[in-house]
Every structure is written in C-alpha cells, then in structure tokens.
C-alpha cells in the first residue's frame, strides 16, 4: 500500500541496476589511519570482523602486515578467525608495491592456509610523481616486480592506483597494461584525496573499463572513495553505475583525514536503491562496536544510526506519525515522515516533547509507555514543554504526571 502512496521520482531516468555489487570493508585498515581513532584491541577487531560478516559484506581489508610485526600478528589472528569461525567475508591486505610488504602477506597465507587478496598500491597522479621524483619507468618497474612476486607466491592481486582521480589517462593506460600483464585480477580506482565529483568518478571508471576491455582481460574494478568533499557515498554509487563491481567503505566513515566512504550509509542507500539485498539489523551494532572500539563518538544527527535519526519533537511531524500509529499501520508510521524506514535497521520512530511540540506529542509519549494520559496531565506536560528551551527529559515529563 505504501508504494501507491509515494510517487518515487528517484526512479525517473534511473540507470539499470549494476550487475555485480560487492562491498569491501576498510574499517580495520584505512579506517584506523584516522588521526583521531584509538586502535582497537584484537578482541574488538574480531568482534568488528564478525559484524562485518553478519552484514553480508563480501570482503574486508584486515590490515597492512608490512607495517610491522604487531600489525602482522593482528592480521594473522583475523585471518585465522575467518577460517575458524567459518565466516563468509574474504580477507585482503594492503601492501605498498614492494616485495617487502607483499612477503608478510604470503607468509600469513602459508601459515593459515587461508587465501588473502593482496591489494598493492602505488601513486599514479602527476602531482604525486613530481613530488616524489618518480618516473613512469620506475612506476612500471615497481609494478611489474611486485605483482610478479605476488602472483608467484600464489596471491590474488588487486592493483591500487592512488590518486587515480587526478591521474593522466595515458599514465593509467600504461601502468594498468603492465599490471594486467603481470597478473593483477582487479584494479582499484582510488579517490585517495577525496577529489572526485560523481561526474568525475563515473568518467574515470568508464575510462578504466575501456582500458580493461581493450586489453581483453577479465579484470574487475574497485572504487575506493574518501569523504573530503562529502561526496563519498554518491561517488561510490556513480562508480558502480559506471562499471565498478566492488566499492570500499569504513564504518562511520572513519579513515585517513576526514575518512573513507561511510560503509553504513553506503549499505543503506544500496539497499534502498535495490542494488543489494542485505539484512541491516546488525548495522547499529556494527557502528556502535566501531565507535566504542575506536573512541569515535556517533553524532546525534548522524543519518540512520544517530540518536536523532528517527526522532522528532515537532508538532506537525509528530501529529502525522501519531495519526499513522492510531491507524495501527507500522509501515505508514515508518514512512510518513521518513525516507528510511526505522524498522529497516531495527529501530522505531521516536516522538519527543519540546517547545515545538503539539498535544499529540504528549499523548503519544505517554500512551506508548502506558503512562495515564488525562487531559490535565497532557496539559501540564504541554505547558512545561512550551516553557522549556529544549526537549523535556523523561524525568521532567513523569514528574508532571505524578506530582
């Protein structure tokens, strides 16, 4: 019935659903590169890994073992956990395009017997080449050596070009040709500094798809976005529509500088668009686990997960929600003032009482809790709310009921 009550303009001119949509979780690698996060303990990492799996996320970057023995130990423990707990999520690890970073990954695979994809990265933009003093020859040599080594070690390789969204097309064509020739099975277009707009994201992915097609190779495209311009989610969607088959994100958008694509909001949007099917009832637990483990508070006004996501104190909004509630229609109640049904993530619409509230807010608040709601009580609470500069607390409302 709800569908007949909503004209969905989002469907007008919408592109077809991408044939393959896979998610890659960067929380435990790029996410931990945020300057504000506290690095979680191994038990917390394991808990997060289980929640990544529970959300049906296809793969997870579990760290950069080349960073040192401590990271390598955590990576190995996480890979073992995937094997022991028979999780569906597939592990991958980051590595510079250098044998020294790839060898620890190969050793972990040897010790655990679990395949781990090697995500080997290198800078690709002219600004980065100029600053670092890299020549194209050096890029090609490094790429070939590293990938050849990884493939010889039996690793699946994703070749990650940093700063792809500011790289010259001819440089990209040349180094991708080299990587594919050396055995890379995926190419990751990285918007490393969060430069892209959706148009740019789409353009670069379409270009890379053409390069792959021209090479006649069966190579998948990843999109790795950052949220510097706060366009990360829409860029990821644009990348999928342009031909990427795997997109990266981190819980709560944590990551380098202001962070990566927020995985939680990406998941919600992909589900709402019908691009993926996934049970989002674990989404809150996933976000809260990362928030607690990394010391990253969730702002009240954070979409979907924040305290205020389904909460209103405004009279007109609440009145509509309450009318839907009185019709006994949960779906209607969940849709009348909400683009995202609270029930999608196991939450409920919440109505508070504040200075902008009407009497219906008060009645609903009381009746929902079984608190007796006479006219006098509603009036008392209503008057107190009108005189208050903010939403009333539970104790303030109850004090009016029982005084």
């Amino acid at each position, binding site marked *: 019935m709800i569908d007949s009550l909503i004209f969905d303009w989002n469907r007008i001119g919408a592109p077809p659903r991408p044939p393959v949509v896979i998610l890659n979780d960067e929380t435990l690698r790029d996410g931990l590169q945020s300057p504000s996060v506290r690095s979680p303990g191994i038990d917390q990492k394991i808990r997060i890994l289980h929640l990544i799996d529970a959300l049906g996320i296809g793969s997870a970057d579990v760290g950069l073992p080349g960073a040192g023995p401590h990271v390598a130990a955590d990576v190995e423990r996480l890979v073992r956990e995937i094997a022991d707990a028979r999780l569906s999520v597939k592990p991958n690890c980051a590595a510079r395009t250098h044998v020294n970073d790839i060898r620890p990954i190969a050793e972990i695979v040897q010790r655990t017997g679990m395949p781990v994809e090697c995500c080997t990265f290198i800078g690709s933009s002219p600004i980065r080449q100029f600053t670092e003093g890299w020549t194209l020859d050096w890029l090609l040599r490094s790429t070939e050596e590293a990938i050849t080594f990884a493939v010889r070690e039996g690793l699946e390789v994703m070749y990650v070009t940093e700063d792809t969204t500011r790289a010259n097309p001819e440089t990209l064509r040349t180094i991708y040709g080299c990587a594919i020739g050396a055995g890379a099975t995926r190419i990751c277009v990285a918007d490393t500094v969060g430069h892209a707009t959706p148009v740019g994201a789409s353009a670069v992915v379409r270009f890379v798809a053409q390069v792959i097609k021209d090479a006649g190779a069966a190579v998948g495209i990843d999109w790795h976005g950052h949220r510097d311009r706060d366009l990360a989610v829409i860029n990821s969607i644009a990348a999928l529509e342009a031909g990427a088959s795997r997109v990266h994100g981190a819980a709560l958008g944590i990551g380098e500088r202001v962070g990566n694509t927020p995985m939680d909001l990406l998941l919600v949007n992909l589900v709402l668009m019908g691009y993926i099917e996934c049970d989002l009832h674990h989404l809150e637990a996933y976000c809260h686990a990362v928030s607690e483990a990394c010391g990253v508070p969730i702002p009240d006004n954070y979409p979907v997960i924040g305290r205020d996501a389904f909460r209103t104190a405004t009279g007109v909004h609440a009145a509509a929600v309450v009318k839907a509630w009185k019709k006994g229609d949960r779906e209607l109640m969940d849709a009348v003032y909400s683009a995202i049904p609270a029930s999608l993530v196991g939450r409920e619409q919440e109505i508070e009482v504040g200075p902008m509230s009407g009497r219906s807010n008060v009645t609903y608040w009381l009746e929902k809790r079984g608190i*007796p709601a006479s*006219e006098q009580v509603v009036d008392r609470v209503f008057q107190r709310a009108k005189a208050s500069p903010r939403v009333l607390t539970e104790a303030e409302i109850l004090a009016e*009921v029982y005084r």
Partner: protein
Amino acid sequence: MPFGRSHHRAAPLLAALLALGASVAAQAPEGFDSSRAYAHVRDQVALGPRPAGSPANQKLREYIVRTLARSGYKVVEQPFAASTPVGQVKMANLIATLPGERPERIAIASHFDTKPIDEFRFVGANDGGSSTGVLLELARVLKDRPKPRLTIEFLFFDGEEAWGEWRAPNHTYGSRHYVTAARTAGTLASLEALLLLDMIGDRSLNLRRDTNSTPWLTDLVWATARRLGHGAHFLDEPFPVEDDHIPFLRAGVPAVDLIDLDYADWHQAGDTLDKVSARSLQVVGDVVLAALPEIEARLLKAK
C-alpha cells in the same frame, strides 16, 4: 528456606514431570520464582528497620529502582511530605508501568515501609518485606510475557504504617497521596482495579476475605486460588481490614486486599526472615498471575 523455582502455569502435568525429575523448565513460560521473591525479602531485612523517612527506607527505594531497572523498567519516584505525629516526614512512592494494549490499567501494590517502633528492632520480614518481594518478582515475570491487554502499574507505597496507634490520618500516607495526586491529574478514571498485597509470607498462610474489598474482585481471586488448588489458603471467613486499598475504594476504584493478619509476630520483634515461607510467596504470586487475565477479561467485557 527457599521453595525453589517453579513453573506453575502448566499445572498438574508439569508438576508431575518435575516430580519425576524431568527437566522441562526450558519449554515452560517463565513462571513466578519464589526463590527470587524470597531473596528480595532477605535483602530488605538485611537493611534493618525501614520506616518512612529513614536512611534504610531510602536505601530500599534505591534497591527497588535497581531491581526493576534490571527488568527494563523506568521507575518514577513520587515524592511528598507527610504530616505525621512526629512532624513532617519526607516520603516517596515508587511507580513502574508495563504498557498494555490499552491505556486503562490495573495496579498491583504493596507498601515497602516498616512500622516505626522504638522499643525493639522491628525488621518487618513479613509486614512490608514479603509483599514487596512478591511485587518485584511479579514485575519481572510480567515483563517477560506477551504484552498484557490492559496496562499494569506496580505501586510501591511508602508510609503505610502508623506512628504509634493506627488512627486516621496516621497511616496509609503513600496510598492516600497517590490517590489525591491521580484524582487531581485526572488519571484515576483509567485505573480500573487494584490488587493490594500485604503480609503474605506467613508460613501458615490464611488469607481471609476482607469485607471492605470489592466483592466481585475478591470472588474472582478466591475462585482463581481454588482453581489452582490453593483453596486451603484462601478462606471464606469474612473480616474487615483497613489498609492501603481504602483510599482507592473511597475514590471508586475496585480493590482487593490480600492480607493474612493471622500472624503471631505482627508488629513484634519476631517478624523476622525465618517466619517467611517461600511457599507462601509462591502461592500468592501464582494466584495473582493467574487472576490478572481474568480481571482483564472481566473489565474489558464491561466496556
């Protein structure tokens, strides 16, 4: 000694299986657990005498709030100042609500204060302790069951006991305050029945029919007790009782008082934990749980 866990809802067959040592508890709905209720009585007694206005009374309120919070209740404190023979005494009722499908409500109540007595140490294991323990356990059990048709309000009254002689208005301070406040707030009209528990832990449980209580409600509870096989504890002898239900009756709320005043240690130093029987707590807990849906049905039928 605690009577132990019991799951009386499945009645005779289940009892027989339990007697045979079969473990079927996991399949039965959560029942009233007299060992938990008894533990609450023990914890109250451990606080010592708990008269209104005393630090131990305050500690007991905190205990009630904590216990109910563990079952997911938000407890509301209803503070008030009572004029007593010893001057103004600060008291507070505690209220917890279990929302039902309808806003009309049934209250289950107990006083939690003990009688102020200077001459000896009076810990009120039965008088104050037993019914409060049962009420806490009832709240836990009902929270775990499907949503009730009517809302249930758990009322913990302060200041039921008199300072010295029981003579109006020197008693039932908490219940009188609740009724006055609810009448002013216009919320008394949606209170459709009160089940009051008081002194229900005596080893030899003899509940007599209080003639002040509402007859249909008393009949219904007594019939439920007989149906559960507890008729021997619910005697048909009439006798009048003044208790926390009187202010409700006067305000037109149907009420029944489950009280066993046939208790040798009533207001004596001997009202101690050893006089309280978990078996008696179990009987009352089971009868209240079984009577509630019938009271609901009766009230809804009248609409």
